[in-house]
Each structure stands twice: as structure tokens, then as C-alpha cells.
């Protein structure tokens, strides 16, 4: 190690100015290049723009642009993080969340209440924490549910102290500013490049912007690696408990730490890098250059040395204990694709059952090549979905949902009995009851249902005008199976006026509505949103 904790702490950094200067330079360089290109294009003599007045003007414009960029990009960074990570305020009714609030208060006490710090909880099983500050002085610490539930109180306290140190020392502001200056445009560009036509990606402007962004990202990384060591030292100074932080870090290092998609460049705000990379665990000039986080092993070793224990002791302390209830360690684990289309896991069955987004249609992998819908794996069906039904004290019927393959529940819909799937929300209605339900339709529907109805109507009108008005030709395999008689159902529009696709069984006279379809149909009928082929946009 080139420096001790004391030395690291004493290094006062004022790098925000450096960022600003880099930004200024980038703007200046870009504008100068554009000017040169313009003079080339207009075939003006070489050096037309090379005089003091033009250079001054260029400097002024780039200064203004850099200042505006600086102010605007760093304004809303905290809200951006909240929105992107679906973070929520801690629930004071919840014991664990209350503990987090208490710990935050304790940390404020130890720092002499120097700054008001908020905290939020990120609803994921991953273990990670991050801190963000904006130029307006708002400070937030975000902790994942996984971290909250798996760390002991002293460990959690050390982690919160670590994040609080980032905020109090000012290096968090520096990192947040760096992230929002270059990271946000980078992630915007990433998104843009996904949606635009391929030709645009080859244009020189795009390539230049991309190159500049990559360069500036590299710069961020180069100068922000040691801040984690500093924050560790600060946390120890606050809690006087290096062992708890070492154990906490060791736990985090052993488990999964992704916190969902944050966007380019913002990873540096996290306690441990959510994207695991080989350079993070190595030293040397290249690793220092490209990595935002120092080797975890190193951090743990330093902390353990402060507590006068060896690294092996920390590892032993935090090793998962063997279950005493006879549960074997070879319990099968699964990976699940979350609603943001990212693989999460590994989870054992009991962990799968508490994932809020877990449904029978979730894609599941056992770590091998095979990927299946959750309902196709009998073990999961038993352990997760049947248990959920039992927990909610729902009385299952003999009918199976045609998409989730889970028992349907008998419910009352507009005061008549229908069968609904607890998981996907689809509804099975006997044909005789459909007219009743339509007649009882309420004139008030949510904006979502109204908007959905309009879109579906417009889309299906186009479909119908193009093709025959007969039942859509579909391969038999793709047709739904009737929950009642197990024959294939017919996929058709409800009627020629109300173009909602439904699945109808011609053998036993029942109709299956996918989620929202029943409401959409009611909404169309009550609001008279009938399809008129002569009018391209029937509902305005």
C-alpha cells in the first residue's frame, strides 16, 4: 500500500474544479473542431478563423456551455437515482427499516449533526449501498433490502458510516458531479444508440461524442479509486469498529451485488462495484486507471489489521453456517429473469417465494443451459405458488389458468361469480355471464384502461381491415387450452364492433380474458368506442 489511512484522510481533494476544466476543454475542443470543419467545407483559406477575436468568442461560448451543462446536469441527480432504482423511503412501521432510521440518527450524532442526510431503500435482494449528493446540498444514502436483512446491526452501522463519510468529506459530491456530467450523457447516448437507425451510429458527430465520453469516463475512473479507502477509514473513526466493517464487506463480497440498471458511470457511487470486473480485484497502474473500486480483499485486510485479527478469521466469522435443521447444503438454486430483463440469483426456493415480481411466467434457469417458465418446473409450482395461495388463504378451484397453469380462484366481479388467476389477473367467464357483466359496466375507468382500449382498438382495426374478419389463423400449438374441458380454445375478436382479442371455448362455452381485456371491453362498450372501418381513427 502506498499510503496509510491517516495519509489518505489528510489528502484534501478539490477535484470538482478539475472536472469543470475538463468539461470546458471538451467544449472548446469540440467547437474548434467544428469550426475547422466548417471552414474546410466552405473552402475558406487556411487560418481565416485563427485570430484573437474568434478565439475569445470560442472561449466565451464554451465557458457558457460548460457552465450550463454543469449546473443542469447536477441538479436532479438524486431524483434520477430514485426513479431509476425504484428506491423508496423507509417505512417507519417496519422494524428493520426503523432500525435503519435509528442507525442513521446515530451516525448523525457521531458527526455532530453536521449535515442532514436522508436515506432510501432499494427493493432488491442484492447487497450494496450508495451515497449521492447534489449541488443543492441534498444528501441521500441508499441501502438495498438484501443488505438490510443480512447484515447485523453493527455491520449495518459501519456501512452507513462509510456512506456518510462519503457525503461529509465532500468526495461524494465530486463523484456525483463526475457521474452526472459524463455518466448521464453516456447512458442517454447508450439508450439513443439502441433506438436509432444504424446509419446514425456511423456519423462522425456520434463517433466523436462517443469517443469524448469514453475519454472522460476514463478520467473519472483514474482519479476516484482511493476514495473507498478514505471512506473506510472515516467509517472506522466514527464507529470505532473496524471488525464490523470488515465482516460487512466480506459478506457483501460473497454475495450478489448488482442493484439493477443504473446507467453508465454511476457505478462509482456504490460501496462495491455492481459490475464485477477482473480489474477491480487487481492492483497496478492499469487497474488503478480503469477501476473505480479498490480490491475488496485489500480493504478487508486493512480493516482486519486495525482490529488486530487476521483475514482468515474474518472469512471464517462470516462463512455461511451449516443449517442445524438437517437442510443439506446441496439445496438446488435458481436464477430468475426480473421485470427489467436482468438475471438475478442464485436463489433457493424459499428466497424465490418472497420475490415480489416472481410469477408463473417468470423465466427461470437452474444455472445450466435450460431456461423455462416457472410454471413448467413442478418444484417451484409447489413451493412458491401453491404456498402463496395457501398464505393468502385463497380457495383454489379445479380450473387451471391457461397461461400460468395455476389454479383459478372464484371471485365476485360486478356482483357475479367469475374465475380469476391470482398471478396474471386473467379472468375466465361463462359465456352466459358476459352480457351481464357488460351491462353492469361502470362509466368510470382509469386512464390506463381508457388509453389501453384506444390503442388496442386502433391496432386491431388495422389488423382487421388488412386481413379477413374471420378468426385469426393461428398455429394450434399457440392456442390456449380451455381450463374447463382441456380442448384448444378459439382466438377471435369479441365482436366486429368491439375489437378485443379473446379466447373462446366452443365446446363448453367459456371465454378467457387476458389481464385488462375484460375492463377494456367494458370500457369500450360503456363509452361506445365502437370500431368504424370508414373512419381510420374511431376514437379520438
Amino acid at each position, binding site marked *: 500500500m502506498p499510503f496509510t489511512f491517516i495519509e489518505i484522510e489528510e489528502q484534501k481533494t478539490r477535484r470538482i474544479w478539475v472536472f469543470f476544466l475538463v468539461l470546458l476543454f471538451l467544449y472548446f475542443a469540440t467547437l474548434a473542431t467544428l469550426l475547422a470543419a466548417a471552414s474546410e467545407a466552405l473552402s475558406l483559406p487556411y487560418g481565416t478563423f485563427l485570430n484573437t477575436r474568434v478565439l475569445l468568442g470560442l472561449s466565451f461560448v464554451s465557458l457558457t456551455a460548460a457552465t450550463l451543462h454543469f449546473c443542469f446536469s447536477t441538479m436532479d441527480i438524486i431524483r434520477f437515482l430514485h426513479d431509476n432504482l425504484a428506491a423508496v423511503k423507509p417505512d417507519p412501521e417496519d422494524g428493520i427499516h426503523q432500525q435503519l432510521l435509528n442507525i442513521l440518527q446515530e451516525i448523525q*450524532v457521531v458527526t455532530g449533526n453536521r449535515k442532514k442526510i436522508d436515506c432510501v431503500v432499494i427493493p432488491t435482494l442484492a447487497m450494496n449501498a450508495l451515497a449521492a449528493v447534489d449541488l443543492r446540498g441534498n444528501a441521500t444514502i441508499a441501502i438495498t433490502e438484501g443488505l438490510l436483512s443480512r447484515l447485523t446491526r453493527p455491520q449495518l452501522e459501519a456501512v452507513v458510516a462509510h456512506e456518510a463519510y462519503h457525503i461529509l468529506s465532500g468526495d461524494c459530491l465530486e463523484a456525483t458531479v463526475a457521474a452526472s456530467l459524463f455518466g448521464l450523457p453516456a447512458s442517454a447516448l447508450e439508450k439513443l444508440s439502441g433506438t436509432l437507425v444504424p446509419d446514425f451510429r456511423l456519423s462522425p458527430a456520434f463517433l466523436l461524442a462517443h469517443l469524448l465520453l469514453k475519454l472522460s469516463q476514463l478520467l473519472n475512473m483514474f482519479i476516484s479509486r482511493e476514495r473507498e479507502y478514505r471512506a473506510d477509514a472515516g467509517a472506522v473513526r466514527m464507529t470505532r469498529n473496524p471488525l464490523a466493517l470488515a465482516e460487512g464487506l466480506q459478506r457483501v463480497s460473497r454475495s450478489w451485488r448488482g442493484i439493477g440498471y443504473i446507467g453508465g458511470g454511476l457505478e462509482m457511487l456504490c460501496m462495491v462495484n455492481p459490475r464485477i470486473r477482473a480489474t477491480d480485484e487487481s492492483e497496478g497502474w492499469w487497474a488503478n486507471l480503469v477501476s473505480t473500486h479498490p480490491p475488496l480483499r485489500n480493504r478487508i485486510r486493512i480493516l482486519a489489521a486495525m482490529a488486530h485479527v487476521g483475514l482468515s478469521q474474518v472469512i471464517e466469522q462470516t462463512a455461511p453456517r451449516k443449517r442445524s435443521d438437517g437442510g443439506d447444503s446441496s439445496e438446488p438454486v435458481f436464477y430468475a429473469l426480473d421485470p427489467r430483463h436482468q438475471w438475478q440469483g442464485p436463489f433457493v426456493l424459499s428466497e424465490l417465494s418472497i420475490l415480489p415480481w416472481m410469477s408463473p411466467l417468470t423465466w427461470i434457469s437452474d444455472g445450466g443451459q435450460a431456461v423455462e417458465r416457472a410454471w413448467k418446473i413442478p418444484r417451484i409450482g409447489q413451493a412458491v405458488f401453491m404456498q402463496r395461495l395457501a398464505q393468502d388463504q385463497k380457495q383454489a378451484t379445479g380450473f387451471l389458468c391457461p397461461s400460468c397453469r395455476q389454479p383459478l380462484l372464484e371471485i365476485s366481479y360486478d356482483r357475479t361469480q367469475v374465475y380469476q388467476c391470482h398471478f396474471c389477473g386473467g379472468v375466465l367467464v361463462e359465456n352466459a355471464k358476459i352480457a351481464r357483466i357488460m351491462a353492469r359496466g361502470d362509466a368510470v375507468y382509469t386512464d390506463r384502461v381508457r388509453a389501453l382500449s384506444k390503442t388496442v382498438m386502433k391496432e386491431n382495426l388495422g389488423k382487421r381491415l388488412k386481413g379477413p374478419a374471420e378468426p385469426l389463423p393461428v398455429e394450434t400449438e399457440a392456442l390456449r387450452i380451455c381450463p374447463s374441458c382441456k380442448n384448444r380454445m378459439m382466438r377471435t375478436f369479441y365482436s366486429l364492433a368491439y375489437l378485443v382479442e379473446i379466447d373462446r371455448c366452443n365446446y363448453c362455452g367459456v371465454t378467457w380474458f387476458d389481464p385488462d381485456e375484460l375492463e377494456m371491453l367494458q370500457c369500450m362498450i360503456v363509452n361506445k368506442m365502437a370500431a368504424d372501418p370508414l373512419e381510420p381513427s374511431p376514437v379520438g
Partner: protein
Amino acid sequence: MAGWILLGIVVIAFLWFVIVYNGLVALRNQVQNAWKQIDVQLKRRHDLIPNLVSTVKGAMEFEQDTLEKVISARAKAVAATGPQDKAVSENMLTQALGKLFAVMENYPQLKSNENVMQLQEELTSTENRIGFARQFYNDLVASYRTKQQIFPNNFLVNMIRGFNPEQYFGAAQADRAVPTADLSLRAR
């Protein structure tokens, strides 16, 4: 020439005086503020204890002795004034509470009681806050004392009044003693 040098020395001495004096005043105020912060946390603890006692009283009728000790220690702590006196009485209260928590472990019905769990978390948090506030206070006292005692500030402090060395908020001897555990499984 000599006059200029003399003037320079006087100006430097005056500047030094101003800087050191202002620094000491700022630190003194910070120390006083930190002391008040401890007070806030101690008050919080005193307010929580009656709640805890009344919640666990029903289940712990055979532990009247422990409960009474907590109550009397709290009464003493509330009445105490000044760092020394407070430190002693608060340490007694900490011990009495520690004993109560240890005894509470023997009552499974208390551990499953949400109210008790919540109160216990609140008290744990308060204990930590007191510890942290004390740590912050002691750190400030240390730097205040250092600033008074280093050369040449010590001359200045001796010349003018108003900067007394503040007291540390220390842990009692009993806190540092190794606890003895009774493992004889005697019936209580």
C-alpha cells in the same frame, strides 16, 4: 528600520493572538454544544425507560429487584448535574439496564412481543447515540485541551481567563471490569 521590524513583530503577535483566541472560543463553544447533545440523548433514554419498565413488568414479576434498580438509577441520573456527577449516575443506569436486558433473555414471551422488541431497538439505538455523542464530545475535549496546552498557546491561556480544561466524559471502572457470568443454573 528597527522601528519597522518592531512594528512587524507587534502586528504578527497581534494576529497570532487573534487567531489563537478565536480558535479557542470556537472550540469551547463546540465542546459546550457537544455536551448539550449528550444531554439530549440522555433525556431520550430517561423518557424511554418508564415505558420499557411498564411493558415488561407484567411478564417479569419475579424480577422486581432488577426493575427497581433500573427505576432508582434513572431517578438518580435525572437529578444529576455536571459532567462528573452525570457520568457516574449514567454509568450506574447503563449497568442496571444491561442487567435488565440480560434477564429479559430468560423470558421468551418478551422476545416475541413486538412492543418490547421495538422498545429494545429504541433503547439500543439510544445507548449507541449516547456512546457516539460521548465519543464526539471527548474528541472535541481532546483537541480543545491540546490547543490550550501546546506551545506557545499555553502562555496565552495562562494570561487570560475563561479557558478551563473541560472534563472528559469517562467510562466507569465497573464498565471496564470483566463481567462474571453465573453458570450454576440455580433456580431463580
